[in-house]
């Protein structure tokens, strides 16, 4: 646990790993996290949810009514989002695919 903010330090999830080679001119870690948040928000906005980075160590998932949860990785966002929305978020849902195709 981080002594300053009380955040549990966990193993990095595979989807939170950057695959850019060091020195390749790829994104910085900070930029990478913001890009990951932006990508997740392309899905989440379809369900009235928004993700933000929290101190570079976790993510904040919020609904339009202000309900907020902290999640450690993008992979943990989806079950949390489904609990907040009380509905499944299915990447194979025809409506979601059409929304993404016109995004």
């Amino acid at each position, binding site marked *: 646990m981080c002594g300053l903010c009380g955040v549990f330090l966990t193993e990095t999830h*595979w989807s939170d790993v950057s*695959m850019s*080679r060091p020195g390749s001119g*790829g994104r910085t870690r900070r930029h990478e996290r913001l890009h*990951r948040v932006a990508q997740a928000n*392309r899905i989440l906005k379809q369900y009235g949810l928004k993700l933000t980075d929290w101190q570079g160590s976790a993510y904040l998932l919020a609904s339009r009514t202000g309900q907020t949860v902290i999640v450690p990785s993008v992979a943990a966002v989806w079950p949390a989002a489904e609990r907040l929305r009380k509905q499944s978020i299915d990447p194979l849902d*025809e409506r979601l695919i059409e929304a993404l195709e016109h995004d």
Partner: protein
Amino acid sequence: MTSGNRPTPVNVLTGFLGSGKTTLLQRLLRSPRMERTAVLINEFGEIGLDHLLVQQMDESVLVLQSGCICCSIRDDLKSALRGLLSRRERHEIPAFDRVVIETTGLADPGPILYTLLSEPVIRHHFQLGNVITTVDVVNAGLHLSRNPEGIKQVAAADRLVLTKSDLAEPGQSAVVRDELARLNPSARLWDAAEDPVDVDFLLDMMPSGTPPVPARYRLEEGVAQERGSTAGKPTAPGELRRHTDSVSSFSLMLDRPMDWTAFGVWLSLLLNRHGDDVLRVKGILCVEGTETPVFINGVQHIVHPPQHLERWPTEDHRSRIVFITRGIDQGRLRRSLQAFCRLQVAELSAA
């Protein structure tokens, strides 16, 4: 860890009841290359028959005591691997540089892989190697129909070992081969009755030059032609095919380098909702910002840490991903990936 601080590879040997796992293990253990191998055997039921058969491994053999490795004793697997580690460090057992886990015939490989990839101490000291699945050619249809875990074992395999093909009816072996190639085109086949034991081929994840995704598909609409397999063809008639019809495999090719971050977000969402039915995802990816390919490998909800390969196995540097799914609309999956990653995704079919 072994000398040089490299994680010790762990191979999982699985397969239906009576499909020849122990026989294969015994053949492997006769190789001098296997001298420094620790073996974990899963004892199912009251009598450890398997233990009796391979007891010559003595100090390195550890029998897991409480039944099926997957559903009831994942903690035992954790304890067994930690115990091996501890005993090696204390020099109570000979040094070993590989572990082979023989599962029960009823084992779902998922929880075993999950334990190996997620338990903090184990993932630090051990590294998952090939999953080897034995398939009894004579009884493949019976096994796949009676054992719902059988298809998961086939899907999770990196190497599929055909056994008892010398006892099969003429043509039976070809039918099973074709069906296995349809179910899991990313696995490589080896016939235990015909071929001498090749330890490197069976146990090493990727011997140099081996493409993790086989070039056995052609692009729809004839954009690219590659030589290939029977995957996708209805070659397995009757009984065998009827039991595996809900499972399909397909391969996707992406037209240009992908945004790894976007792909990771999409795949994590797919596995969150459909992980039970994504029996396998395996691919070699051309990722923006890196010259070398990235290898991904997942079994249901469990994804290996993605890794950079040293080089592309062929001149074709486009991303290819093989999915083995159950009851998933593959056209919709392709469209979903295409829309989210903003790439053209072509579906490949059997050549």
